């Protein structure tokens, strides 16, 4: 992994947080090292048991017949949509809530954008019998209603965040404020590979079960490593989870110590992070609005939410309002490790626009019988637009299911003239 020292990934990472939080972050760093890295008190064993029994792991890697034929390439789907809660988010939420329990914390808080991290956290907190509050922006509350209900049904309090545009960015800021007040008994379960160290590496570690399984599965099913792994990136947690165990498959010469007999280079697995291109890659500096969330492609280094990373910001350094049809990608920052891997050339950043994502949503639903999250649909839109870029064998990470997105999809599809066969009139009967 690329976090060689003190939570930095090249120039990125670090701990840019109010002083009041620093002791908690040091405590967390210590707990992360003991429990997660060193499996103290059998933490990782318990985590894995619970991921299996409560979460439903291992999750299949599925050969996608229709897509493989369409794109003339072997497309495998890593089915995180089947994880309890409907997205990869539980891998991390369960890990962190369990860690909070090991740390003796008594209360859980979390931010949420699409509501997937919030529901995952609420579920994990209920499962582990911990009180839980979730901060969610008002815009996201409106476009992800089912998830709001689910969190509440699981006994979590949902605190609406009304400042700014009311999306993920504001929700994170608000959760940090809560944490700054309650840090002594509360753990903040951050929802992606963002925030101050040790969050980016810890969340990645919890999520890396995705590629740990996928690597075994593809070797078993295809008899080889994939030529590429494609994942959507908001903060980048499903991305890093899907990439982690392939990062070292970089096609480089092996160091002599690693060489077995010959000196062939390692296999090369291309890692492709697909961000939300929104409605346009252009930016309105004047109003501070980016009509996209394509941080890796268009962002610039800066400091946000506790870490140095790539950001959507104006020339002064004010954070822009990002936009995406998918709430879970609608974020002006990105995980510092992902930013670093892009700079290093190890990860290829890409983006697709809202229309392409919606089309991919319908295509996957109709052709494979899998209704993906709108976030996930971005990865499939990339595949659709770049079938030649993924090699002969590719893994696409199905980061979540689309049940939460039904209303948005109907509304947004109706507005557009999509290049896919959807008859919107058929949706009226049941409204």
């Amino acid at each position, binding site marked *: 992994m690329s976090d060689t020292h003190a939570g930095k990934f090249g120039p990125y990472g*670090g701990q840019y947080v*109010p002083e009041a939080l620093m002791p908690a972050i040091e405590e967390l760093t210590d707990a992360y090292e003991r429990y997660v890295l060193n499996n103290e008190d059998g933490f990782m064993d318990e985590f894995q048991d619970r991921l299996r029994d409560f979460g439903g792991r291992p999750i299949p890697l599925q050969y996608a017949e229709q897509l493989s034929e369409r794109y003339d390439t072997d497309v495998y789907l890593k089915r995180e949509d089947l994880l309890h809660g409907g997205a990869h988010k539980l891998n991390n939420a369960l890990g962190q809530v369990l860690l909070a329990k090991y740390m003796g914390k008594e209360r859980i808080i979390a931010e949420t954008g699409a509501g997937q991290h919030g529901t995952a956290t609420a579920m994990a907190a209920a499962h582990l019998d911990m009180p839980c509050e979730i901060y969610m922006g008002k815009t996201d509350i409106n476009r992800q209603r089912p998830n709001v209900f689910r969190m509440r049904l699981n006994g979590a309090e949902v605190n609406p965040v009304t400042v700014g545009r009311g999306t993920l960015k504001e929700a994170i800021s608000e959760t940090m404020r809560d944490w700054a007040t309650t840090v002594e008994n509360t753990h903040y379960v951050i929802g992606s590979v963002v925030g101050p160290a040790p969050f980016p590496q810890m969340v990645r570690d919890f999520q890396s079960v995705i590629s740990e399984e996928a690597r075994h599965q593809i070797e078993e099913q295809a008899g080889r490593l994939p030529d590429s792994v494609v994942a959507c990136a908001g903060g980048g947690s499903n991305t890093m989870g899907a990439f982690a165990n392939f990062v070292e498959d970089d096609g480089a010469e092996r160091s002599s110590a690693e060489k077995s007999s010959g000196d062939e280079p390692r296999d090369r697995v291309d890692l492709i992070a697909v961000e939300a291109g929104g409605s346009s890659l252009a930016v309105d500096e004047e109003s501070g609005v980016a009509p996209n969330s394509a941080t890796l492609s268009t962002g610039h280094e800066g*400091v946000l*939410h506790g870490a140095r990373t790539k950001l959507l910001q104006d020339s*002064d350094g*004010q954070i822009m309002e990002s936009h995406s049809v998918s709430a879970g990608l609608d974020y002006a920052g990105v995980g510092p490790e992902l930013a670093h891997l892009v700079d290093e050339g190890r990860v290829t950043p890409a983006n697709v626009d809202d229309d392409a994502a919606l089309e991919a949503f319908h295509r996957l639903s109709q052709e494979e019988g899998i209704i993906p999250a709108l976030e996930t649909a971005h990865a499939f839109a990339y595949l659709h637009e770049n079938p030649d870029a993924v090699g002969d064998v590719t893994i696409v990470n199905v980061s979540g299911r689309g049940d939460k997105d039904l209303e948005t999809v109907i509304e947004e599809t109706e507005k557009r003239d999509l290049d896919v066969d959807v008859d919107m009139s058929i949706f009226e009967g049941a409204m």
Partner: protein
Amino acid sequence: MAENERLQAVFERDEPAFIPYLAAGDPDYEASKAYVEALARGGADVIELGLPFSEPIAEGPTIQNAIVRALESGMTPDRFFEFVEELDVDVPLVCMTYYNLIYQYGSEDGPRPFVEKAADVGLTGLVVPDLPAEEAGPLRAACDEFGLDLVFIVAPTTEGERLERMREQVSGYVYVQARLGTTGARDDVSDQTDESLARIDDWDVPKAVGFGIKEGEHAARIVRAGADGIIVGSALVDIVADGAKSDDSVEAVAERLERKARELKDGALAGAADSEPRPERT
């Protein structure tokens, strides 16, 4: 470590410092100037001027809203520096902002251009709430180069090694956070204040207490507890917000700010009068 002379001078006087905060540009450029000047008239010894950042993670709702108003009225780092230059006040000014604005300023990445400009317009120090000592190296260096103080915040949770690290880096004054949480006016004074002050009792830097001070009475109580200064933000921002909401004249609001400033300053002085004389500083 740089000690800005003007800031140093404030704390060398034998009375507690009153350090009010306002967000520059709240609710607009001109009114804000008048308000800052009113604080000076009201007895401010140092003024903390907020340069508004879009993600103020350490602020409570009062100051968040002030920042939104200031941003909406067009405040930017460049305008901020103009603002400072144009201000007709005599007391040292400290800029309070978030690290990303400092980092992005100027043509190169990094804090140096910002600090150079800050020194140039006469600012005496910086407070950066999202920059803990661990990440402060480059900014500390720039401040040293241009003679600015870098104020750190000691939180109720700051202990042990972290406290030592901060002690080495802090200059100007140490901002003692009176309680956990974000900024915002409260109705009581926290016991955490006494404990925090006790923890840094032997530090050779002035201690200014902030977070939640609202009335002269609070100010007195905190000075009695041993503070060298009191920092008041939200209680003053509330006055600006009320004025903006009721569309009151700038003069009327300025007048209220001046009065509130005097109340707080008097409270601090009263607290000092009750306390034993403060030890001389070098």
